[in-house]
């Protein structure tokens, strides 16, 4: 139990996937304009990441290692992730057309979200067991969602703030992201 709580705290706060490991920056800046769509994106990524963590672990342990074809890790994992994203896209399109519209191109782009592939590969590299892998994937996804929603909340306020013209839009967002990243460094001493 202690191990699992350490994995969770480490993944969500200390080694936050976006703010400390700098993975998944594209949706972090792309879908963080509104809190509602940020939450939706976070949920979609959480789903994909958790299941990708699960399935890739099985693929690694029961397909790649027994057949001694570990060098196919990247392409096999991408195959898994791409299929999962397709699946999520169908479900979201059916269940919530509004969310589907709000996420737009960023939904299929989860495929190329390096956070998903990154976490899957990190699970293998850290030689996690199945439960640890799932927990780590889920916690990383929560960390991603946390960073995304925090960023969206700040950016919603930035819309009304009096910002110098040259910093409006993306520049101030990048500065904000950097400050958030520095703030998250403060969690380093937690464990």
């Amino acid at each position, binding site marked *: 139990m202690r191990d699992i709580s350490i994995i969770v705290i480490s993944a969500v706060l200390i080694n936050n996937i976006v703010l400390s490991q700098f993975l998944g920056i594209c949706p972090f800046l792309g879908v963080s304009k509104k809190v509602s769509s940020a939450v939706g994106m976070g949920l979609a990524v959480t789903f994909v990441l958790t299941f990708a963590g699960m399935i890739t672990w099985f693929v690694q342990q029961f397909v790649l290692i027994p057949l001694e074809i570990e060098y196919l890790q990247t392409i096999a994992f991408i195959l898994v992730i791409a299929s999962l994203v397709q699946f999520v896209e169908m479900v979201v399109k*059916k269940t919530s057309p509004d969310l589907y519209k709000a996420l737009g191109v960023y939904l299929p782009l989860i495929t190329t979200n390096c956070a998903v592939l990154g976490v899957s590969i990190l699970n293998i590299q850290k030689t996690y067991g199945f439960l640890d892998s799932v927990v780590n994937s889920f916690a990383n996804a929560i960390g991603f969602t946390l960073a995304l929603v925090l960023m969206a909340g700040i950016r919603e306020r930035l819309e009304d703030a009096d910002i110098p013209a040259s910093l409006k839009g993306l520049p101030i967002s990048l500065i904000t992201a950097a400050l958030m990243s520095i703030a998250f460094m403060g969690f380093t001493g937690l464990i």
Partner: protein
Amino acid sequence: MFYAVISLAVMGAVFGVILAVAGKKFAVEVDPRIEAIQKILPGANCGSCGYPGCSNYAEAIVLDGAAMSLCPSCGSDAAKEIGEIMGVAVDGEMGQRKVAQLMCAGGTGKAKPLYKYEGIQDCKAAALQYKGPKVCNYGCFGLGTCVASCPFCAITMGDDGLPVIDRDVCTGCGVCVRECPQQVLQLAPVGQLVHVRCSNKDKGKDAKAACEVACIKCKICEKNCPEGAIKVVGDLGSSIAVIDYEKCTNCGICVEKCPTKVIEKQEPVAEIGCRDTNENAAEASTGCALCGACKE
């Protein structure tokens, strides 16, 4: 090697089957009318209707009841066809289509250069440098932002450094008009043949100093026009000869009288109605390199 191929193939097949089943289960029914309307629209995604693209506009017509005559590129015929699909009678002529016209004749050798521009070959970039590389602050830079922006391949760069608009191909979508940083392009009815090829609003003397073919605000055209269609409008220092397309009969008297020969009369084009624009748009969207070969 053998296992690698087999295992990936099997994984691919398994995921494929799962997705196929999920696709059936989570299928979203799309109104077939949307697709039918999409086929009528030019598919150039120029955005003139106010929607991001042709498919969005088709969706808006079916789902939100948007007006059916918003597409400037296909005119009345398309509006009627869309009306048939929607089961609504669309009456009234849209009038003749519009085409883009360049309100500048100051090409290479005619308009005086202010400096030699060696930056990015884009009018918007050039406009940032001392209001452009020509002495005239109103004229065409000739760097081809309109050529690159045209979704229908209707604009080519001429030998004199001015864009040439193919009026047979132009649909009047207005993308180039919006893209041009000099606002030297305007939409005019295709039947309008006489145009003032100058946008310079400076005093006559200054305009003439900047360019050989400038409107010098002499008002000779205004005095000679039998219809009162052409007028020099605006205060001194910000005036220019403008043709009222409603009144102009294309008689060409002003063309003869203009001392700087800045008014031009074009040859009429064969077709003034709506044409099938899908072909051009398809060419453009399949990676048209603007080589001009499609014109031949």
